[in-house]
C-alpha cells in the first residue's frame, strides 16, 4: 500500500485513492497518420520495465481526479517525487540523486514556454 503525495491536493494519500495508468511521458505522436505501422505499434504497445528509477502516470481517482507523475524506484518501491502534468522529473536514471537545481529551473522554464502542456 503506497502512500502517495498528490501534487494537487498537496498531501499524502492512501494508494486506494489512486489508479496507476502505466508509464509516464508517452506522448501521442503529433501526426498519427504520418507514423509507420511500426512507430504506431511502438506507441501503442511497447513500454519500459526498468529495474530502478521509473516514471509512472497515476490519477487521483478518488480525490481531485487529476493525473500526475510519480518517480518510483521499482526495487525499493520508494517514491522519490510526484509532479504535475507538464513538469519534468528531478530524479531520473541519469540523475538518481536528483538533477541540480539550475537544470530543473531551466527545464521548467522551457516547459512554461511550450504551447499546451503535453504528457
Amino acid at each position, binding site marked *: *500500500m*503506497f*502512500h502517495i503525495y498528490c501534487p494537487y491536493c498537496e498531501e499524502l494519500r*492512501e*494508494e486506494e485513492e489512486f*489508479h496507476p*495508468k502505466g508509464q509516464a511521458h508517452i*506522448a*501521442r505522436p503529433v*501526426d*498519427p*497518420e504520418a*507514423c509507420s*505501422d511500426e512507430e*504506431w*505499434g511502438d*506507441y*501503442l*504497445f511497447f513500454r519500459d520495465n526498468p529495474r530502478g528509477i521509473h516514471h509512472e*502516470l497515476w*490519477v487521483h*481517482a478518488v480525490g481531485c*481526479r*487529476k*493525473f500526475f507523475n510519480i518517480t518510483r524506484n521499482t526495487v*525499493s*518501491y*520508494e*517514491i522519490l517525487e510526484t509532479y504535475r*502534468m*507538464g513538469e519534468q522529473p528531478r530524479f531520473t536514471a541519469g540523475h538518481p540523486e536528483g538533477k541540480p537545481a539550475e537544470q530543473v529551473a531551466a527545464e521548467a522554464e522551457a516547459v512554461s514556454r511550450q*504551447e*499546451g*502542456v*503535453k*504528457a
Partner: protein
Amino acid sequence: MSQSLKQPNRLREGGRIDRSHTLHFTFNGKRYLGHAGDTLASALLANGVDIVNRSFKYSRPRGIVAAGPEEPNALVQLGSTEAAQVPNVRATQQALFDGLTAQSTNGWPNVQRDVMSLVGKLGGRFMPPGFYYKTFMAPASLWMTYEKYIRKGAGLGRSPMVPDPDVYDHLNQHCDVLVVGAGPAGLAAALTAARSGARVILCDEQEEMGGSLLDSRELLDNQPADQWVAQVLEELARLDNVTLLARTTANGYHDHHFVTLHERRTEHLGETAPVVDDYRPSRSRMHHVRAGQVLLATGAHERPLVYANNDVPGNLLAGAVSTYIRRYGVVPGNRLVLSTSNDHAYRAALDWFDAGREVVAIADARRAPDGDLVAQARERGIRIIEGAAVLEAKGSTRVSGVRVATIDAAAFKVTGQAETLACDTIASSGGYSPVIHLASHTGARPSWNDEILGFVPGLVKGVHAAGSARGIHDLAAGLADGVAMAARALETLGMTSRAIELPQIDTRREGAACGLYQVPHEKPTLRAPKQFVDPQNDVTAAGVELATREGFESIEHIKRYTAMGFGTDQGKLGNINGMAIAARCLNKSIPEVGTTVFRPNYTPVTFGAIVGRHCRERFDPERYTALHQWHVENGAEFEDVGQWKRPWYFPTIVNGKKETMHEAVARECRAVREKVGILDASTLGKIDIQGPDAREFLGRIYTNKWEKLAVGRARYGLMCKDDGMVTDDGVTTCLADNHFLMTTTTGGAAAILEWLELWHQTEWPELNVTFTSVTDHWATMTITGPEARKLLAEISDIDLDRERFKFMDWRAGKVAGVPARVFRISFTGELTYEINVQANYAMHVWKTLFTHGETYGLTPYGTETMHVLRAEKGFIIVGQDTDGSVTPEDLGMQWCVGYDKPYSWVGKRALSRSDTRRDGRKQLVGLRPKDPAVVLEEGAQIVLDPDHPVPVPMVGHVTSSYYSPTLDSGFALAVVKGGHQRMGETVYLPMADGKTHAAEIVSPIFVDPKGERQHV
C-alpha cells in the same frame, strides 16, 4: 470425562497469576484447572501435561518448547462448539479463560496412540526431505487421494463448518511513531516519543506489556522490573497522544510504513466475544496503521541447540523455563540439565534452583565461563561442566536423562567420553536471534553480526530497530537504545525529542558467548538419532545436510526442499540453526549462506480479522436506483450489473404460479413490440460536458462526427482506444452549443469519465472543456412501444408531434409535473421516449406513468428483455459482443466512423494497421439456428466442418443468444472469421454434451431491418 484437580508443577507463590481465581479448561477431552493470568501452555505445564501434539511428518510425541510465538509444537484447535472452532492456535499465546476447550492439532486418532507414528517409525530413516514429493508423485492423478489422507494424518487444523457468530472490524490509524514491542527498549522509546508530543502507537503481542521485564531478575531503581513497567504504562495511558494496544501483533509491514496490527480484543475472555448490553463487540480488530516512522523493539528469540532427540517432551528453551517459573509460577519438571553457549541462559538454572528444584548440571560449551551469572550458579553449588554440551536426550514420551560430553564446537567433534545424567527436563540456549521479521517484510536484507552471533535487521528509510531487536541484549543498554532510536525517529520527523530519565540498573558482567548451533554427536549426522532443526516441519540436521549433498546450495532452495521455516513457524525457531548447518556442510560462513526472506504474516491471522466488516451484505456495495423500492415491491428478480442491482425481469403470478424467466421475458417482449413497456435505465453512465471546445473534444474521442450536431439533437457514438478497438458506446445529446450530455454503458461509467479526463489532462489540455458525472443526479425511465406517445401525452406538456419531436431529438418540458428532459432514442427499435428527471422526483413520475399506463398495457421490463429486444435489432452491447479485440469495422459499423474527420481521432490510425486490415478478422453476424427451438449457448465455439478431424479449427463464437418471441425462434449474435462474406452459409456448434447444432449466418438485424418502427 476424566479430571485433574492438581497442578503438580505449580509453585505456591510467585508469578503474575491470580491463584484466588481458578479457571477450568479441557484439553484433549480431559478437564484441568488453571489460574487467571495463565496461558494455555503454562496451565498445561502446571498440570504436568507432557505431550501436546504429534509431529507433522514423523508423528513423534511433542511437548511445549517455548513461551511465545516461536512455539513450534503446541498448536491447538480451539473451540467447544462447531461455530467456535479456531485452528492452529499457539497454546503459548492463548490466554486461559474459564471453559476453554482445546485439542491437539496433530495426532489422529489421538496424541497418545497415533496411527501415523507407524509411518514415522517404519519410515523413520526412509523419510528424507522430499519424501512426499518422491513417493507420492506418481501417478499424478492419485496425489489428491494421497494428500487427503496425509493431511488428515498430519493434521493441519480445520475450519469451522458453520458461520462464525463473531464480528470483526478494522480501524484506520495514523501516527508519527509506531513502536512495535513493549519490552524495555519499546517502553523507553514510546515514553520518549510520547513526552515529545508525537502521536504514538505502542503495540505488543502479549497479554501484558513489559516483555522481558515481566520475568526479569533485574532491579530497576532498586524495584522489581515490573514496577517500572507499571509506572511507564500508567503515564502512557494518561497521554492523549498515545494509543496503547496490548494483545496486538504487528503482523505485516507493507509499503511506506503501512503496518497491519492484529488486536485480539476478546480472545482472552471466551471462545466467542461476550455479549454485553445486547451488543457483541468485535472479537478482533485489524488496525491499518500508516506511520511516519516505525520503531521495531521486537526483541529476540532464543535459539535452541540442535542435539539428538532434542524434540522429546521435556526439552525447552532456557528462557522459556525462566518465563514459566517467574511469570506463571510453574516449574515444568523436577530435575534440570541446562546446555548453553552463553551467560544469559544461566537464569534458567538459577530460577529453577530458587524455585526449590534440582539442577543436575549445567553443560557450558565455553572453556572457562566467568560472568556474574556463572558465579551465582557456582555460589549455589550447581555443577558446571565446562566445554561441554548435551549430545543426546534420552526418553520417548518425556526426557529421562541426557548424555553430556566435552566437545570442540569449531571442529564439530565430540572430544570427551559421554556421561549419562538422569533428569526430566533439558533447557538449552544457543544464543539469541533478533526478531527481524517485520524489517524483512520491507524487502531489506538483514546482515550478520559476528559479535552477537545473529542477523540484525536491514532497515529502509524511516524504520528503526532498538534494543534486542538489533542485538543489544543488555538491559541498561537496551533502554538507552530505545531512547536514542526514538530521538532519531523524532528528528527525522522534524520534532524535538525530550529526554527521559532512565532507571538505575546494577551493571553486571557478562562473559562472551560462543557460537554453537548443532551439537556434534559421536555418530555422523546422517546416522545419529534425529537432531531437529525445525520441529514444526520435522526438519532435521540430517535433512539439511542431505539437501546440501543433493546439490542444493542456496538457502532459499534448501528451505523449499526441506520445508524448513514453512507454515506458521516462518523460521522463528530453527532458521539460524538451519543456516549454520548448511554453512558447515558447504564450508561457508553463515552470512555467505544468507538468510531467507520472511513474509507476512508474522503469526497467523483469522480470516475474520482480515475481512472485518466487509462481509455478508456489506461484502461489496450494492448500488440502487431511485426506483429500487418499486422494483422490490413489484416482485422484480435482480441482476448484478457491476455493483448495480438492476431488475432482471418482473415475474407475475399466472394461475397461482409464478412465471419462469422464459415466460416473463416473452410476455415483456411482446408488450414492448405490441403495446408499451417501461425500463429503469438510470444506471447508464451520464457525463455532463461543457465548454467552448466540448464539440471538438467529442470529435476527437468518438469515431463519428459531431461538428454538425444541432442543439436539440442526439447522436449515437462509438469510442475506441487508440489501438482501434471498441471500448464504449452511447448516445450523446447537444443541450446547448457548448453543453453536451454523454451517456456511457452502465459498467463503463467511471472508467469512461477517467478516460475523458486522461485525454484532456495529458494530451489536449488546451481544449476548454469540463466533465462532471451526473449519473446519480438523473433518473432515466424508458417508455418504449407503439403506445409510448399516447401514454406520455397524457402526463406531459411537451409537443410530441412526430414531425416536431423526431427520432433522435430531445425536448424539455414537464412530465407528471416534474421538469424533464425527454430523449427520443431507442434501444429496442420501437417508438421510445427516455424521460430524465432529477432523481429525488423519479418515484413520483414513475408511479404516475403507471397510473396512466394501464389503459395502454404498460409493462415493466428488466435487463433480460432489454437484451432480447436490442439483439433482435442487432444493437451491440460493448463488453458482451465485443471483447477489446473488435474494431468498428468488425462490427459492420462503418456508418459510425468518420474517416474524413480532420483530426486523427482516437483509434483512427490503428484502423489502417495491417492487423486491422487483414482478411479473416472475426466479424459480427447473426446466427439463426436450423432448429428454431434451439437457443445456442453464449460462448459456444463455431466450426465450419463438424466432421473435421480433431483438432477442429474454430472460426468464432456466440456472443449473445436468446429466444425471440417475435420470431418464435432462437437467434444469436456471433463473431465469425470473415463473417460478413459468409451470409447464408451454414456453420456448426459442437456442444459439450456431444450434440452439434447447425446454424445459418444471417444479418445481425432480425427485426424491422429498415428501422421503420422507431421513426413512427
